[in-house]
């Protein structure tokens, strides 16, 4: 019997379906993947190390740039970790707005996932539809923060600024229309025979394996494990809102798709509830040692001006200690582990990255599969390379 040689095929780093610059080294036996090795690091920027040389306020814009599709949950995890370290209370209005932003960001991130996943499997229409909806979310972000993606809207002790006039109305318009848009995506995909053939039973991941690979977020839930940090250890106001956590049954690409579709609907409901209870009041806590005073005040009060100068030049020094705080990001558990030695800069910042762990499961998922399925599976686990490499 003739011995056949395997072939090495590099998928990426410039492959359109690797969502960034991931190089997958595939060892192929014909059309079957024998072994897959992800090579990461092309986007390494040293964020974690950089943050050791920045004051806590200065770290916030860095967190945006890791997972550039879920900037809000990055900001949120970091700022809330620092707030936990400081024992700082955040006003209820700021908390409520943070919930709205986090859920908007989840929808936006899932829309990008849906768009790219559909495009990679040959459906170009959902791509255009999803991006046109995401545009509205980015417009909302831009209206309140001034930029579309790197918002840095969540700050230590509150928010960058209050919502501008007319924002809530624009948001209400979006959440009124959005469920119909999700229906459209589902019309195009959920029962589409080609979509079913490409996704059903492809890349099955059991709940035990998902836990073994430390997966979190939609990937873990699609595998049948009901684990959502918003439910398990509620932060912000999540315990006051009514929302369901979708859990898959099979753990295949199709379940990962369905879970994200339902999450988008549940996020819309969450935003709707949060808007209804949005309290009035300040959006920053009133702690002049940590939080920048309002700009009008520094023009009148000498004491506030001194605090302002001190904060801008030196920052603040939290007590020595360590803290871990995680939020449920669109891709999974987004956590920050911060060690403070009592100085004005973190001694160490470690990110618990959902994308990195998602990439870790890829070799297991695609070994023994056909090459066309590689695209479907790699896309379905949803990762952003900026956060994998950091």
């Amino acid at each position: 019997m003739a011995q056949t040689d395997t072939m090495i095929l590099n998928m990426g780093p410039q492959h359109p379906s690797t969502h960034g610059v991931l190089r997958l080294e595939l060892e192929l036996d014909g059309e079957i993947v024998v072994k897959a090795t992800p090579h990461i690091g092309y986007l390494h920027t040293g964020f974690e190390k950089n943050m050791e040389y920045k004051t806590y306020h200065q770290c916030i814009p860095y967190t945006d740039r890791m997972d550039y599709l879920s900037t809000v949950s990055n900001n949120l995890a970091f700022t809330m970790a620092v707030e936990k370290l400081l024992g700082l209370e955040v006003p209820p209005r700021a908390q409520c707005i943070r919930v709205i932003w986090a859920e908007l960001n989840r929808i936006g991130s899932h829309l990008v996932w849906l768009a790219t996943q559909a495009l990679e499997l040959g459906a170009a229409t959902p791509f255009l539809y999803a991006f046109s909806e995401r545009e509205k979310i980015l417009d909302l972000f831009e209206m309140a923060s001034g930029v579309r993606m790197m918002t840095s809207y969540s700050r230590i002790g509150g928010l960058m600024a209050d919502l501008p006039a007319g924002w809530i109305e624009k948001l209400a318009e979006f959440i009124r229309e959005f469920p119909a848009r999700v229906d459209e995506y589902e019309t195009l995909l959920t029962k589409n025979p080609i979509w079913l053939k490409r996704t059903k039973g492809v890349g099955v991941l059991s709940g035990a394996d998902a836990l073994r690979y430390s997966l979190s977020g939609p990937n873990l839930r699609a595998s049948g494990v009901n684990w959502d940090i918003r439910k398990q250890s509620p932060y912000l106001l999540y315990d006051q809102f009514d929302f369901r956590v979708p859990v898959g049954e099979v753990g295949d690409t199709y379940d990962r798709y369905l879970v994200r579709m339902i999450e988008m609907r549940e996020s819309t409901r969450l935003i709707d509830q949060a808007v209804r209870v949005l309290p009035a009041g300040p959006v920053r806590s009133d702690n002049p040692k940590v939080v920048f005073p309002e700009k009008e005040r520094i023009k009148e009060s000498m004491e506030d001006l001194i605090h302002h100068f001190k904060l801008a030049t030196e920052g603040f020094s939290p007590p020595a200690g360590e803290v871990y705080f995680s939020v449920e990001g669109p891709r999974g558990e987004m956590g920050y582990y911060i060690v403070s030695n009592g100085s004005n800069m973190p001694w160490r910042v470690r990110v618990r990255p959902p994308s990195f762990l998602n990439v870790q499961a890829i070799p297991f998922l695609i070994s023994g599969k056909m090459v066309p399925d590689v695209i479907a599976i790699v896309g379905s686990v949803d990762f952003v390379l900026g956060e994998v490499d950091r």
Partner: protein
Amino acid sequence: MADLLKCPLAERERVVGKGRAQVIIELTKGFWLTLRRLFSAPITIQYPEEKRPSVPRARGLHRLERHENGLERCIGCGLCAAVCPAQCIYLEAAENTEEARYSPGERYCRIYEINEFRCIFCGYCEEVCPVDAIILGPQMEFSKGNPKDFIYNKERLLVPLKSKGELPASKDAGSRSSSGLVASPMS
């Protein structure tokens, strides 16, 4: 994981696309949707002929503001350079004299440089400026051929004086500072 409550995917039938009739029905639904969308108004903007309107809080290219009498607002305190996470601002302050007066107070900014290559447009400089001198404007398009052109010095950043005696072009300086880049209850 027995303690974790398990709720199955929301009431959702899981149709496997088998049977030719089912295939045709589902494909027709999809095509019907795209056909309907074909007749809806396009949302595409014909950039660059047509541009998106900028928002009041836009964080684009910096500018240095002037007072209404034409004097520079910047007093060279250096807070912007200190807070900048990307360390892209360099400035040197100097004393105003009776012969050469640049800003109302004692000190003015002699050298002010922003490396727009390094800048990440976080807007911290604008937020911390105690005299509302540095503003991030709506200008987002300033690509250039020469990398050296991205180091903006004070002359390029300052809002130009139109002519002597005329009010300078700091048209919305006052409205911007109260428009919400600092935390102020607005609505």
